[in-house]
């Protein structure tokens, strides 16, 4: 019993957020009087996949002691680039993916290098990067998004494997993989350590700059994957599809327990963080709460969630 208690207290598993997630689901089911099928919940999970993936990236940036405000623009860019390259032809899927992710890697690299080598604040750098990307895709498209996504690629977002949406499965698989990397590999340990204190990491002989840069690259790549996923969902090139993802990904990470100080948080918390946000959104659409009402309740709920979560964390430590 004592051992159990200790394990609970010192575990870095975010139990609190899961409890909140369960509560939200309960509210969801109660307030829709059961008119909503489990399939609809899975559908919500499906449409949450892009946010889920990019939020994992954001969490990694936060763990690295940074922040990435360019993920939204990156997602928008990937949508425009991959749609115009694929342009409905399935044989162009591969080049579309590769070029998109290649661009993302470059963006992450630029973010990381500027932040670490020039000691600039991540907020400023990634915000400027986001403006540059936006300009980049305006120049690229001349303001007219064009191209669409081939059916075979859209399967990623629209297909179902048995009773599970493909998008959801991909998200969970990525989660498992990244969680494994963060928790069980030397790289993951180094990332947490460096994020918590770059000075100590450097003195411990870690390639601290390299680790931080790799974190930003990873974040951008995940934003890229989210962009691909979103493109498969949207099906066409469309301007600014990623805009909302920047703040939402941060909110999801923080609801999940990530801190802005680096080294604190986990992907295990980000998952319910994302689900809480999207279930809430969907609940409000279903309840027919107007746009204004959505803002009202979103504000309220995020604040309350995080407050409850903070309280929980304090008690546990």
């Amino acid at each position, binding site marked *: 019993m004592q051992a159990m208690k200790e394990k609970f207290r010192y575990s870095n598993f975010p139990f609190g957020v899961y409890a909140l997630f369960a509560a939200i689901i309960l509210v969801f089911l109660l307030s829709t009087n059961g008119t909503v099928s489990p399939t609809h919940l899975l559908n919500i999970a499906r449409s949450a996949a892009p946010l889920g993936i990019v939020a994992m990236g954001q969490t990694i940036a936060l763990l690295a002691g940074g922040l990435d405000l360019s993920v939204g623009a990156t997602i928008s860019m990937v949508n425009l680039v991959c749609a115009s390259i694929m342009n409905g032809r399935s044989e162009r899927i591969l080049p579309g993916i590769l070029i998109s992710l290649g661009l993302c890697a470059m963006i992450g690299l630029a973010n990381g290098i500027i932040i670490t080598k020039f000691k600039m604040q991540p907020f400023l750098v990634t915000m*400027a990067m986001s403006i540059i990307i936006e300009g980049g895709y305006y120049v690229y498209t001349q303001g007219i998004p064009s191209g669409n996504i081939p059916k075979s690629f859209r399967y990623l977002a629209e297909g179902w494997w048995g009773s599970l949406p493909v998008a959801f499965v991909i998200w969970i698989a990525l989660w498992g993989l990244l969680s494994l990397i963060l928790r069980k590999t030397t790289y993951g340990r180094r990332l947490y350590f460096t994020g918590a204190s770059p000075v100590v990491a450097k003195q411990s002989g870690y390639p601290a700059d390299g680790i931080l840069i790799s974190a930003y690259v990873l974040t951008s790549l995940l934003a890229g994957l989210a962009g691909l996923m979103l493109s498969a969902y949207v099906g066409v090139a469309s301007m600014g599809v990623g805009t909302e993802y920047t703040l939402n990904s941060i909110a999801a990470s923080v609801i999940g327990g990530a801190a802005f100080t680096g080294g604190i948080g986990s992907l295990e918390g980000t998952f319910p963080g994302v689900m809480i946000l999207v279930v809430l959104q969907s609940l409000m659409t279903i309840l027919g709460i107007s746009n204004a009402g959505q803002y009202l309740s979103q504000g309220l709920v995020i604040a309350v969630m995080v407050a409850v979560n903070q309280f929980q964390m304090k008690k546990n430590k």
Partner: protein
Amino acid sequence: MTGSVKKQVKQAVPSMAVLGVMIAAAAILSPTFRNAYNIRNIAAQAAVLSVVAIAQCKVLFIGGIDMSVSSVISFSTILVALFSRDTMHTALFSILLALAAGALTGLINGIGIVTFQIPAMIITISTQAFLKGICLILMPGSGGKVNAEFAAFLKTRIGILNISILLAIAMYILAFFILHYTRFGRNIYAIGNGEVYAEQSGIKVKKNILIVYMISGMIAAFAGVLLSARISTGNPLVGDSYAMDSVAAAVVGGVSMNGGVGSVVGAFFGAVILTLINNIMNNMGISPYFQYIAKGIVLVASLMIFQIKRKEIK
């Protein structure tokens, strides 16, 4: 200037230099840039952002951030548009109302931070969303009418500067002295340097944080008042861009997001730099598509050069 004030003000030097280079380059490259009319425009355009930057600055100094300024600004334009009617009295009333609303928002932010320990970024994003909801209920589109007399008053020019920017400058001078030379101001820096230690030294940290967020809300609301005069109407979305821009202005001006470092002086230059980027690009006829890229590059590249020298900010 003595003590750490000197160092804090020094943080603004790079932004001054960047501004200097920008002005010089623009003046050489574009003849229209130099005309008085244009300079007057820049001053008028910078007023609102520079005032919001003061609000943001104070919050950044204590190691927080205030994303709710955007909705406070929109809300404030709505209040002024709805209540300013046609006498100067009612206009004044509407301004007080707006300031009170700003203070209330700040109070809520502060309470969320000190009593519920919600990270500043999150609670202020929450109040931002909440207040935006209220804005949209009050005014789904733009509407109302700002008292014309009042709007005209803020646009009155004295020489090349209008009343708005003069008010902004006055606020900067006030903020400068308050932050650097009063107990309250020094407490803000101390809190930004380390809340726990500040508490141990007898500074009422919680109370100060509350006050700072309230002041931030009020200053943002005041920026909204200035903005309402500029757009003569209330609008639920008009403040949206100011949250990010105000942080950017402060950071460009050398204010650290970790608290305790920097000065409002820098934020002023930051705000002017951001305003100028747009103006210069319009003057040089840069294609709209490239304006974004240019803006991003100017933001980062100009400061990158200085950052190598600036003390490492963790």
